[in-house]
């Protein structure tokens, strides 16, 4: 990947990564649902310095009308980065990258959302990256999935996502920005663990077939960890409701 300045050492002599993590270790994760008042469902997800808020509106009447599909709901998805989320200010106008990511995130959620229950309606997913430090699409997807669940939208499973990278020749889980910028490969993966299905798969960089298989396995293991935090987060919300009543 194109480097910014001098390439730092990414794998230390003791085999740890530049931030001290092991190769298969996720960044510190925080998740919360119901963070917004107006939205039907919302979530905040943090992976280290990557922070994302996702909101879901709907199912509601599809607007404009011509986008409606007679036999299912339309999923609408916008992935957007705040101007202050990056090192240099990002123009708020949607970039080509954001347009592509909106599409792949939507397509990663299509297999799990039971859109067939809401003909002619739309389910709108709005994602704002407020701090970007690598892995924003996977964090966004993890948050969007929680927000959908928080909105009470029927789903076959919850989607969790993480990127595997290759840095200094080593496959590592959940790469951050430095590892993305100076690594050899970045492979974001999303899966619905209960269904054992992959819903997003991209690779930016080069891998041999063996590395690809190994990386995929590493990603799926990380996804299962994230998935259990997601479920815990959703459960906790209802525990709290009980206490308050």
């Amino acid at each position, binding site marked *: 990947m194109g480097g910014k300045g001098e390439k730092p050492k990414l794998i230390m002599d003791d085999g740890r990564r530049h931030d001290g993590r092991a190769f298969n270790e996720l960044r510190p994760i925080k998740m919360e649902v119901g963070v917004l008042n107006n939205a039907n469902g919302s979530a905040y997800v943090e992976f280290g310095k990557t922070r994302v808020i996702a909101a879901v509106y709907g199912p509601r009447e599809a607007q404009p009308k011509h986008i409606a599909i007679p036999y299912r709901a339309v999923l609408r998805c916008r992935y957007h980065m705040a101007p202050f989320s990056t090192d240099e200010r*990002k123009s708020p106008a949607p970039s080509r990258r954001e347009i592509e990511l909106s599409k792949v995130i939507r397509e990663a959620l299509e297999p799990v959302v039971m859109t067939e229950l809401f003909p002619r309606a739309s389910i709108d997913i709005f994602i704002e990256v407020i701090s970007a430090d690598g892995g924003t699409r996977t964090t966004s997807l993890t948050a969007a999935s929680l927000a959908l669940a928080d909105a009470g939208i029927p789903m076959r499973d919850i989607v969790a996502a993480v990127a595997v990278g290759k840095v200094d020749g080593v496959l590592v889980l959940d790469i951050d920005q430095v590892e993305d910028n100076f690594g050899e490969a970045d492979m974001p993966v999303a899966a619905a663990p209960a269904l*054992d299905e*992959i819903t997003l*798969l991209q690779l930016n960089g080069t891998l041999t077939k063996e590395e690809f298989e190994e990386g995929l396995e590493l990603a799926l293991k990380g996804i299962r960890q994230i998935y259990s935090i997601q479920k815990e987060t959703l459960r906790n919300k209802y525990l709290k409701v009980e206490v308050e009543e």
Partner: protein
Amino acid sequence: MSLTPSTPDYIIPKLKAETIAAIVKKGTRLDGRGLKDYRKLTIIPNYLPKADGSAYVKLGNTQVLVGVKMEVGTPYSDAPNEGVIVVSAEFVPMASPVFEPGPPDENAIELARVIDRSIRETHAIELEKLAIIPGKKVWMVWIDIYVLDHDGNLTDAASIGTLAALMTAKIPKFEITEDEQVLIDKSTYVGELPLRKKVVTVTIGKIKDALIVDPDQEEESVLDSKIMIAVDEDGVIAGIQKAGLASITKEEAIKAAEIAIEKGKEMIQKVTQVVQRPAEAAEEAEEEKAEEKTEEVEETPLEEEVPSEEAEEVEKEELEKPEEEKPTPEEAEPQQEEPPKKEEAPAVPEEEKAEEAEQEEKPEEDLEKESEETESLKPSE
């Protein structure tokens, strides 16, 4: 904002959709191809006289032009001594009833970015050799993909075209003035665009449990999902993009990677053969033409000759109401019986080239009008 498409690209009768799925399940395709076969491929390198590198690609009935323009620009501040690549794709309205005029939509952007990444990540172009005045002036390699006719698998057609166009691309003569301006003289070229790696994408569609290579438009309209996998000449995976509304399993992802590596190397060889030895390729194409005389006349249902026997049988089995279900015989190629050599040399002989050259005026005008937003060297992530 990305929306679930409300109308598929191409609407086909339900019966036909079922037939496609059923026939694929049996290991063959409606047009007689095997699951891993590409359609007939024609490449004409150096197709556009005004471009610095170009190719025309016809894959089945999908037609794509790729033009490379070399211009002088300023480098990105984080890579001051490297040239810049910009890949854009235009799905022009003439190419399909569902393409509308306007800025590239998410599909065009996705296609351009998938190809951009495959080139960038393999370091296919030796960008460090493209500095003119280090830190100040570098070559910008503008790669413009122009879809002229959409019959499915635009990504692979565009990727093959991009490889061919890059292989033909040349660096114009230039002069550095005293005040560090660069004057270009495109009447003479001083060298070829330095390439380090060759890379193509292989698009694999999933229908139920089957994986098919190079889906045509009818097949695309019934695909559950598709995976585009970029592969370089050494069989290294150089990019993946899963698209479509359904999921895939881990096993399917791995299987797709295996198929892509096999087919990708094959396609790179074909492109190399046509571009580097156009004379031989043209000769072989001539022979091919002699054998299948009718071939030049496009769009006529000529090749109804022998859609491979088993395929035909299966089709019949599947078709309960044959009158509704003419399985577009024009696409049926006697694929399996063919010795592989014939397909490898698809360049078109002179007369046809001249014919096709007439098309080029119009698209090129558009090409200059459309000012595409510059792909930033790297995403801010």
